[in-house]
């Protein structure tokens, strides 16, 4: 019906607004990012000169940057292990039939729906040694407990990961639940007749069948983690020192606070390339991995 030439124009006119907006907000700025990454631009000193790949070479010698990369790796790996292990457990709970299941599914949606900034701001206080919720809770079991979470590197990093998990793990579980619901109950009944217990059928039926789903989710969640920004912006401001400055946070401080636009752009380009590689991997994974 719509094959004729007459509709060719209509088709493009319908698409145009969406395309223009995305070109304006992504294509133009990303080309510009590549471009200025080759310059030394320091807005405060009024410097702008072509330096080729110097910004990229500087990345390898910048100790702040190395700290950022290291913490981003810890953050992504730590958070994803938590997501996968706890997320599967939570999904299994959500998939069981029990009274209150519907209420629990609604509750589990709440962290996803709330802005990370609000959660991060509240967490900053919750992790306060004197007046915070978390230590107060621990003190009910261990009265002499004393720890200022956000002033030591390791505890601040753990706290950031914990907050990230609180916010997104329920969402991960809901998406795993979507995968679980595709498994027909016949398979479990057949396994039961063959004498498989519930643990055996989890490892032989459930896990293999949702593995593709988990793999895809993990790739997407990893990509979101790599570009995480607001959790550390509102909770630790990258501190103590530079220990929780995720790469995305580092880009914005270089670009908007220190005004080292060229250097910020080179970090941004690296971030973009990492994302491109990951999405390429996810696409080939989607094609290859099958039941």
């Amino acid at each position, binding site marked *: 019906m719509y094959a004729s030439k007459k509709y060719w124009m209509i088709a493009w006119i*319908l698409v145009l607004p969406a395309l223009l907006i995305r070109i304006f907000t992504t294509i133009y700025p990303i080309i510009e990012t590549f471009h200025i990454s080759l310059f030394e631009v320091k807005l405060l000193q009024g410097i702008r000169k072509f330096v080729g790949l110097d910004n990229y070479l500087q990345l390898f010698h910048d100790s702040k940057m190395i700290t950022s990369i290291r913490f981003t790796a810890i953050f992504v790996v730590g958070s994803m292990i938590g997501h996968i292990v706890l997320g599967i457990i939570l999904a299994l709970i959500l998939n069981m039939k029990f009274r209150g299941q519907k209420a629990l599914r609604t509750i589990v949606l*709440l962290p996803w729906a709330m802005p990370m900034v609000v959660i991060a701001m509240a967490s900053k206080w919750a992790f306060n040694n004197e007046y915070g919720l978390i230590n107060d809770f621990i003190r009910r079991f261990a009265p002499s407990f004393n720890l200022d979470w956000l002033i030591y590197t390791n505890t601040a990093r753990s706290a950031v990961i914990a907050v990230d998990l609180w916010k997104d793990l329920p969402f991960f579980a809901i998406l795993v639940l979507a995968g679980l619901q595709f498994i027909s109950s016949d398979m479990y009944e057949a396994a039961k007749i063959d004498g498989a217990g519930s643990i055996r059928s989890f490892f032989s039926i459930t896990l293999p069948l949702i593995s593709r789903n988990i793999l895809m989710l993990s790739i997407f969640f990893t*990509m979101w983690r790599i570009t995480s920004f607001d959790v550390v912006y509102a909770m630790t401001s990258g501190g103590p020192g530079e220990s929780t400055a995720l790469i995305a946070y580092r880009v914005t401080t270089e670009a908007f606070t220190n005004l080292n636009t060229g250097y910020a752009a080179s970090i941004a380009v690296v971030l973009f390339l990492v994302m491109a590689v990951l999405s390429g991997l996810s696409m080939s994974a989607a094609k290859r991995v099958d039941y």
Partner: protein
Amino acid sequence: MIPKNSRSVPLTLIIWGLAAIVAFLILFPLWWIFISSITPAGELFSKPVKYWPAHPTLDSYRYLIKNVGLLPKIGNTAIIVGLSILIGMIISVMAAFSFARFRTRGLSIAVGFLLASMLIPDVVTARPLYDFLRSVHLYDTYTGLIILYISGILPFTVLILQNYLNDIPVSIEESASIDGCGFFQSMFYVTIPLLRPALATVCIVNFITCLNNFFTPLFYSNGISVLSTAITQLPLRDNMYAVPWDLVSAMGWIIILPIIIFVAIFQRQIMEGIMAGGVKG
């Protein structure tokens, strides 16, 4: 995974126990934020933490309205989120319709571009976009913000609507055209009404996405303040504490409460929306 009839009493108790722990971990912090928001500033800093204030008060909320301009911020948020969703949905329906109904090589490249552009992180484009917006005088304007908010929801929305449209047979439009409908008539009177459930679902998910958008207002506006950024910009009060926690929790609760109500009402549609996006995306 465990057939219902074989479940024993202890197992049921274990499941309830686990469910209770999950519910507690999620709800208790929210309760605590609420309690903090109605506790007088001085009382907040007591040890051990009190989970019910001795003198509950709405002072923090009053302070937000009088001194922090809460109402204009709510107004800004409503204008920006409302218009972004409205215009964004119109643009997305148009694009999704075209992608689902017409097949040319150019169009499939356009679809690919739209989806691929979803993978470009905000931080990568932030600085050049900021400079560009300033140069075209869209920085700190409603128009600029609305364009950026729309851009944020476009790819997801087009993807979902296109999936729904693919399931609606073209023959329905064909029979409408035999009955004398023009192209746009059959789009408006036949296809779009069939899309209504998908539109509702996508609207609800987009509403939450826009409300939670923090990056856009943080970097591309200054004077126009919305709720999500306002919470990080609360004024210090009396120089007593580093952060005005009473105001933060009141502001937090103002943002969270509508979301809780919203999620409770639209639980099913939200679940459908994120599953459609999550599984296929």
